[in-house]
């Protein structure tokens, strides 16, 4: 069962609420999605995960940040402060829908990085899947992947080198404000020693050693390996099982 709706200021955000389909364990989860190609690759996995959580009695809200997915707006009109406020709005919305006092944030990739900066009093727990540690590094990787794409097309002879060099070959063109805000954002380590933070890592090289609880899962998500993953969708069952277990724990 799912309930799609628009919410927030001028109803600019699109969300899908999954009420409990069996029982009700009085627990609510807001999923903070990833961005760009990570979003495309994990969309179905998030939908299936929300369905599984709802069958275990949890209330789940998935939503899209302003300027992404099915929400209104465009990327160049947004920045990370807006996105953090979007998460706060989603929390308010789920609390209002369920009557529960607080929620767990499940953040994925850059969504996890954003979630680590949320200071909403209604957050009881953070579960973060492969958070991006450095926004600046992330943008470098995206830019590198754009270059690889251009080189691949040039090599095939499908694109004139002059055309490729003279045009913006970005997967997504970010506005200056958004780019700057992403570059300045890093994973917030102030939450790290918190008992209510749990990190699910498939990369096994998370640099911030002060995170209290890390679960390493052996599954090749290949987040940054453009040549390997391009085109693939992700359905990482071992990761989803860990996340669902973590969320269902009392």
């Amino acid at each position, binding site marked *: 069962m799912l309930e799609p*709706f*628009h919410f927030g200021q001028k109803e600019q955000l699109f969300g899908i609420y999954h009420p409990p389909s069996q029982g009700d364990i009085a627990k609510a989860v807001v999923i903070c999605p990833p961005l760009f190609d990570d979003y495309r690759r994990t*969309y179905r996995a998030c*939908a299936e995960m929300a369905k599984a959580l709802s069958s275990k009695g949890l209330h789940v809200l998935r939503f899209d940040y302003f300027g992404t997915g099915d929400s209104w707006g465009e990327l160049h009109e947004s920045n990370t402060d807006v996105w953090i406020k979007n998460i706060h709005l989603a929390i308010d919305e789920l609390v209002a829908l369920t009557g529960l006092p607080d929620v767990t944030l499940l953040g994925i990739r850059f969504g996890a990085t954003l979630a680590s900066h949320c200071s909403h009093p209604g957050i009881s727990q953070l579960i973060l899947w492969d958070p991006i540690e450095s926004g600046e590094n992330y943008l470098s990787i995206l830019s590198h992947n754009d270059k690889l794409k251009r080189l691949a097309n040039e090599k095939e002879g*499908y694109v004139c080198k002059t055309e490729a060099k003279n045009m*913006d070959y970005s*997967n*997504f*063109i970010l506005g200056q404000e958004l780019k700057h805000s992403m570059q300045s954002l890093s994973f917030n380590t102030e939450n790290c020693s918190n008992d209510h933070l749990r990190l699910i890592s498939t990369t096994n090289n998370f640099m911030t050693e002060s995170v209290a609880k890390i679960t390493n899962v052996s599954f090749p998500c290949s987040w940054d390996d453009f040549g390997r993953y391009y085109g693939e969708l992700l359905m990482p069952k071992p990761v989803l099982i860990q996340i669902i277990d973590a969320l269902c724990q009392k």
Partner: protein
Amino acid sequence: MPKIKEEALKFGEHDQALAIATFPTVLPKSCPILVIFNAGLLSKSEPFRMNVLAARACAKKGYIAVRIDLSGKGDTPTREGLSNRESVNKDWAALEKSLYSRFGKRTFILMGLCSGADNAIKIAAQSNGVRGLILLDPKIPQDTGYMYRHWHQKVTSPQKWLNISSTLSNRVRALFSKNKDDINVNELRDLPTEEELNIVCKKMAENNGRVLSFFTSFALPYYNKKGQFVSVTNIPNFEHFCDEYWWPHIDHVYSVQAHREQLINTIECWCEQHLQVFQQEKLNPL
């Protein structure tokens, strides 16, 4: 430019399938419905939000644009025990009923990329309400000149000669190794038959319909000349009904934003140009 709004629609068994309709806040009486099928395994907003922006652009031109997750994709649950074709037909029947109930009976234009284009053709072949198609990389037959152009392009391309050693070694390697990661996407597609494609093109011509088609580098195994689609239909004057774009410099999923913008602008202009045609009753062909 009209203001637009969006509405989520649930349809199908137990109202579990999901679509989002974008339309002018003041809805013209006879505006057509543009249905955008999801592509492959992607959700209704993809690839890279292309369907979202295309729907909003067309809604601003006076269309009701509906982007949809077919069963097993995006937010719509899988239907067990049915073939892809059977499942798509059931999805369409439910969506059509839901859209008529919400907006009244209107002309449909169907749009899709890859398997979305396949589904658009298959549905248009059996539905009487479809008068327009926007097809991104549909599979069409090769024409008689295809192989000549294919080899001519290879032989006369400096890039191909420069890369010949790596091309040959890759081919030899592929010949002797079975890599399970090498999947030909075209083999996974549930393609419309040539007969269905012919029926659709004939219908478009007979009912004063319109077709807009785009072919990218992905189509090179079967398409390599602008006008090939029109020529293989063998329908007299079909170029009057069909606009064809050949963009070999663009990849299948429009991963570059500038390319997506080029596509959406083209679709938007086409929609604006033909809105009155779609609003009219069917006319006799030329």
